[in-house]
C-alpha cells in the first residue's frame, strides 16, 4: 500500500530542501568523513565506474545492438554479430519492413488498440473513482472492497473464463473475437487504476467541492470542470502506464485477435520471424520498441520516481 501512498502526494516530493539540510540528510552507508578518506574514495569511485559500465553494457547494450543490426546488412550481422561498426549501411531494411512486411499496418493496430484501451481505462477509472470517492453512494465501501478484492486474484484465473466471456458476452450475447473490443473492454477492469485514482480524489480538498455545489454545480459539472482538471498529474501517470502496458501485452491479444490483419505487433512479430530476412526483422523489432522507449525517455520521472507502479499495472 506504500505504493499508493506515494502516488497521491506528488507535489511535496519535488520541493527541494535547503542545500545545507540536504547535505546532512543525504548521507548513506558511507559517512562524509569516510568519503574524504583516500582509500574509501578511490574504492567507491572504482565500484561506481564498474557499475556504470556494467549498466551500460547490460541495460543499453542489447538495445544498441538491435539498433545497429537494423541498419547492418543481414550477411554482416550473421558473420560478425559483435562487430562494433557495421560493414555497410542498409537503411532499406526499414523501408522493406515498413512496406513489404506490413509493419505499418501492425503498428497502426497496436496504436489503435492502445488508444482504445487507454480510453476505456480512463473512463472507467475516473467515473468509478469519482462515484466511490466524491459521490459516495450508500454501498460505496462494499463496491470498493469488491474492486480491491480482484487485485488479489492472480490474472491466470481469469484467462480461460474471460476468453469464454469474450466469445459470448453474457446478457447481450455478442461475439467480440476478432474485434478490438475484445482487448479494449477487458482492459478497463483494472482495479489498480480505480484504486489509485480513488485515492487521489480522496485527497482533493473537499472545500472546493462544497464551494462548487453552493455555486450551483451539479455532479456532472463538478466532475468535468473541477475534479478532472485537478487530477491531471494522476491521469498522466495512469495514461502512460496504460499505453505501455497495452504495448507489452501478448497473450491476450494472441487469443482474441486471430485475424492477422487485426493483430498488433507483439502478436505478429513471432509469426513473421521464420519468413523474414534477419536484417528486416530486426528493423521491425526496432520499430516496435521505438514508441515505448520514447515514452520512457520523455516521462522518465514517472517511471523512476513512482516505485512499484510499473510492476503493479498488470496482474
Amino acid at each position, binding site marked *: 500500500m506504500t505504493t499508493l501512498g506515494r502516488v497521491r502526494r506528488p507535489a511535496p516530493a519535488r520541493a527541494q530542501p535547503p542545500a545545507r539540510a540536504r547535505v546532512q540528510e543525504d548521507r548513506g*552507508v558511507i559517512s562524509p568523513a569516510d568519503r574524504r578518506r583516500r582509500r*574509501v574514495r578511490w574504492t567507491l569511485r572504482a565500484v561506481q565506474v564498474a557499475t556504470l559500465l556494467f549498466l551500460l553494457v547490460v541495460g543499453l547494450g542489447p538495445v544498441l*545492438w538491435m539498433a545497429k543490426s537494423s541498419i547492418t546488412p543481414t550477411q554482416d550481422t550473421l558473420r560478425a554479430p559483435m562487430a562494433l561498426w557495421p560493414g555497410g549501411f542498409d537503411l532499406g531494411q526499414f523501408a522493406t519492413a515498413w512496406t513489404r512486411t506490413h509493419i505499418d499496418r501492425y503498428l497502426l493496430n497496436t496504436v489503435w488498440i492502445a488508444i482504445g484501451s487507454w480510453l476505456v481505462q480512463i473512463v472507467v477509472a475516473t467515473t*468509478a473513482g469519482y462515484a466511490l470517492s466524491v*459521490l*459516495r453512494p*450508500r454501498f460505496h465501501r462494499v463496491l470498493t472492497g469488491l474492486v480491491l478484492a480482484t487485485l488479489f486474484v492472480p490474472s491466470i484465473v*481469469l*484467462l480461460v473464463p474471460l476468453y469464454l466471456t469474450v466469445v459470448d458476452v453474457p446478457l447481450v450475447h455478442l461475439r467480440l473475437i476478432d474485434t478490438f473490443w475484445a482487448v479494449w473492454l477487458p482492459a478497463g477492469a483494472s482495479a489498480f487504476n480505480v484504486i489509485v485514482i480513488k485515492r487521489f480524489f480522496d485527497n482533493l480538498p473537499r472545500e472546493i467541492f462544497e464551494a462548487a455545489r453552493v455555486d450551483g454545480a451539479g455532479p456532472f459539472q463538478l466532475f468535468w470542470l473541477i475534479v478532472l482538471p485537478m487530477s491531471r498529474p494522476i491521469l498522466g501517470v495512469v495514461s502512460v502506464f496504460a499505453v505501455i502496458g497495452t504495448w507489452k501485452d501478448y497473450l491476450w491479444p494472441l487469443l482474441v485477435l486471430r485475424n492477422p490483419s487485426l493483430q498488433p505487433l507483439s502478436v505478429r512479430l513471432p509469426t513473421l520471424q521464420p519468413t523474414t530476412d534477419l536484417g528486416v526483422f530486426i528493423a521491425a523489432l526496432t520499430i516496435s520498441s521505438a514508441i515505448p522507449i520514447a515514452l520512457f525517455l520523455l516521462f522518465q520521472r514517472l517511471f*523512476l520516481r513512482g516505485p512499484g507502479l510499473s510492476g503493479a499495472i498488470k496482474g
Partner: protein
Amino acid sequence: MGSYAERDVIPRVAVRRWPRVRARFSRDGLSTFLFLVPLLAIFGLFSWFPIIRAFVMSLQETNLVSIPTFVGLENFARVLADPVFAIAVRNTAYFALLALVIGFPIPIVLAVIMSETRRGKGLMSALAYLPVVVPPVVSVLLWRFFFDASATGVFNTMLGWIGLGPLPWLQNSASAMPSIVIEATWAAAGGTVIIYLAALLSVPPELYDAAEVDGASIWQKIRNVTLPQLRGVLFVTLILQLIATAQVFTEPFLFTGGGPANSTTTVLLLIYHYAFQNSLGGEYGMAAALSIMLAGFLAVFTAGYFWLTRSWSTSS
C-alpha cells in the same frame, strides 16, 4: 494536502449545513448511478463474473457447443493424473528458484551502490530501467539471436573472446531454463532497483551515525543497518516476484515453446495447451481446474509466508 482529520470532518460538517445538497448529490441519485455504470458493467462482465465462472467451470465439462455438465472434481483428477503436470510443476518451481537465486540479489546490490552515488544516479537508474520498457516479445525475439547456439551467435562470440566453447543455450534441456531466467531477470530487474532505491532513501541517517559511534565498518553497516531496514520491502518484493514467476508465460512460450523435451513447460504453458492448443475447442474445464489449483497454491503459500515471517517484518 488535507490531513485525515480534515478529510473526515469537513464533509460531515458540510452535510449538516447543507442537507439539501447532500440529498441531491451524495446519496444514490440517478446521477450517482450513471457514474457507476462503467464500473459495474466492465468489472461485472470482465472481472467479477469470470472469477466466479472460473470456479464453476473447474467443476464442469465445458466445450463451446453443448451445454456444460457438472462432473464434480473430475477435472482436478484428470489434471493430477496427467504426466506432464508433475513436469510442469517441477519446471515452474525450478524457474522460480533460479529467478530467485539470480534475480533477487542483483537489484539489491545495484541499488545499494547506486544510492551511494552522487553524480550519475539518474543516468544509472535510467539505464537499469530501460530493459523494462522494451516490449517482452521484442526482448525475447532479440535474445533468441543472442542465444544462438552456433559459434557465431552473439553470446557464443563473446564467450569465444575469453576462450570458452560455444554453449547450446536454449537447445539443450539442461541449459534452456537458466537461459530463459537470465533474459527474464534482465527484463525485470530494473523495476525492483527503482523500488529499492526509494526504500533506501527512507533509511534514517542517524542509524548509520549510531553504528559509526560503535565503530562499525562499511560492510557491517550494510549488513546490520541497511539490509535490516530494507527488510519489509524485501519481504514484499520476494513474494511478489515468486507470484510473478509462478505465472511466467511469454518467455518459455516464445523461446522454446516448452521444449526441448518438455524441459521448459511451465504450469501456464500447460494451461494454455489444455485450453487453446486444439483449435476445435479445448479442455476448458481442465484449464480452469489447473489455474484454480495454481491460484490456491499461491494464496496458501503467500499466507504461510506472511505468517512465518510476521515476527521479522513487523518493525518496518
